[in-house]
């Protein structure tokens, strides 16, 4: 793949908005698309959807367990269901419904965690979802997906609507630049290579792919180091073939995610590499296991070094 320059002014919308507009497009042609919300149509940018397709939106009120159970019942009849609620509540309060009613019963619900990670910033830890990858990775039969940009979001929603098994997708609120202007394919379980390089590898997911890509550009500009940058939008199943291919270069690898350092993308990659004898300098960049610092999403990212500068600095140390 050749070098591409992403233009931050192109399609800079919150992934949540793209989620909503994509769903509207799908619902226009497919009456089986049903959205289920828990007083979350506003935060899910779904008010226009509800106005346009009142027959295809179910409101359950603030009752997340019921949201997922009802969604599973709907999906069992052939509905293409998107159950939408803040990721923090959805993947904690309704975890058992996701486990039993969705995953175990194989009801193909698309579980949509909105305002994920620390998107709610200063609202505090009740509203953060830094556990969702870990919790859902340990449950059989549900994909775990965190699209990075508007392109991946639209592709992921279209793929989820057609996928016959459960999918978890999480979206943030921040406007996201396109990672690449190239037309690339999108497939669950296949990491997206944004750029290729031999000096180090960034494996990132969701809203941290952009700062990882910026860090890669900074290192190339300032240090002459050329990195491979992967948007690992599907955390489970992990794209092990891609990881093995880039790990074979022997270059240091840095993983980046808006999640607890425990149980997310980084540990998934570490587990694969270790168990396959792929030893290389390796660092997980994520939110540490502590009382999360208060502030906006940007403040929190800065505090924990999940920024262009912080990621570049960590990577540089690993290269020494």
């Amino acid at each position: 793949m050749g070098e591409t320059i992403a233009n931050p002014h192109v399609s800079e919308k919150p992934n949540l908005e793209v989620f909503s507009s994509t769903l509207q497009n799908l619902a226009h042609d497919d009456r089986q698309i049903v959205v289920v919300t828990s007083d979350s149509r506003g935060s899910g940018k779904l008010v226009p959807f509800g106005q346009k397709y009142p027959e295809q939106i179910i409101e359950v009120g603030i009752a997340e367990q019921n949201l997922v159970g009802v969604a599973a019942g709907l999906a069992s009849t052939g509905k293409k269901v998107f159950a939408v609620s803040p990721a923090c509540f959805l993947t904690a309060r309704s975890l058992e419904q996701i486990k039993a009613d969705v995953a175990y019963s194989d009801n193909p619900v698309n579980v949509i965690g909105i305002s994920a990670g620390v998107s709610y910033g200063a609202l505090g830890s009740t509203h953060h979802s830094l556990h969702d990858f870990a919790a859902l990775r340990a449950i059989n039969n549900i994909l775990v997906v965190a699209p990075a940009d508007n392109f991946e979001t639209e592709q992921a929603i279209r793929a989820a609507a057609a996928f016959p098994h459960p999918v978890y997708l999480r979206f943030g609120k921040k406007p996201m630049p396109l990672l690449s202007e190239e037309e690339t394919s999108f497939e669950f379980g296949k990491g997206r290579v944004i750029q290729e390089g031999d000096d180090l590898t960034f494996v990132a997911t969701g809203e941290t792919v952009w700062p990882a890509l910026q860090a890669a550009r900074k290192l190339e500009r300032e240090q002459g180091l050329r990195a491979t940058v992967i948007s690992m939008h599907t955390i489970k199943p992990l794209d092990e073939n891609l990881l093995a291919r880039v790990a074979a270069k022997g270059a240091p690898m840095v993983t980046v995610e808006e999640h607890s350092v425990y149980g997310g993308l980084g540990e998934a990659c570490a587990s694969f590499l270790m168990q396959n004898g792929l030893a290389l300098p390796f660092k997980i960049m994520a939110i540490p296991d502590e009382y999360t610092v208060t502030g906006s999403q940007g403040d929190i990212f800065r505090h924990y070094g999940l920024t262009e500068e912080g990621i570049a600095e960590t990577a540089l140390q690993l290269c020494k």
Partner: protein
Amino acid sequence: MTLMTPKELARKSVDYRKKILKYIYSAKAGHTGGSLSCVDILNVLYNDVMQVSPENFASPDRDRYIQSKGHSVEALYVVLADQGFFPESDLETLCQYQSHYIGHPTKKVNGIEQNTGSLGHGLALSVGTALAAKLDKRDYRVFTLLGDGELPEGSNWEAALLAAQYKLDNLCAIIDHNKLQITGPTCDVCNTDPIDAKFEAFGWEVKHVDGHDFAQLKETFQSLPFQGEKPSLVIAHTIKGRGISFMENQLKWHHGVPSPEQYEQAQEELNVLSEAL
């Protein structure tokens, strides 16, 4: 479906009870008391009420049954076997290594709609399924069986609210009200009485029935929906361990397995009952 007389249903139930005990005794595992309390309800539903069979099980128009109190699965297994969903001999593998016939319902068993086992899930699943019928303008009905012991699960009440909100008169929940749970009488553990007033306040239409009286069960289910635009609740008053003298209302039979002597006695009691019918 050929409707059955109360007497024919009663004969079937004796047969079902013999089989429930046979397979639990053979597996050395199972929820005996609850299976014996709910089997008459299942008998009437499958033989007299629901439009569901092995032949129409793939049809989107079939009636659905979702067992929220999944642990009483042995009753469901013998009824489904009798309906022809699978050979009864499959039940010889009950709870054995690699058997699909485990201690809670799973869709790997033909005739089962949802995997259940964790309590407080069946009602929300049923609400979603009934909602889909309304969205698609289909006439099927959804039945779900809850235990009284699972009523403190808050998810039930979330689902109860929504069923009324969406006017799901195609939904019928049945509570197997045997008044005992594993720790003791339900009223002493976390009292949910009055169940009827609570559900009525939530917007449901409620009827009480003797859960072992076939004529009453038939009549009750024939009168569904109890009121248009409202979900229906049947509070079925039952006896845990019903039909076996030494098991009735005895807590230890929640998941007790009979000894050889107890098994013989239980089968003999059912033989006597059968002859009397």
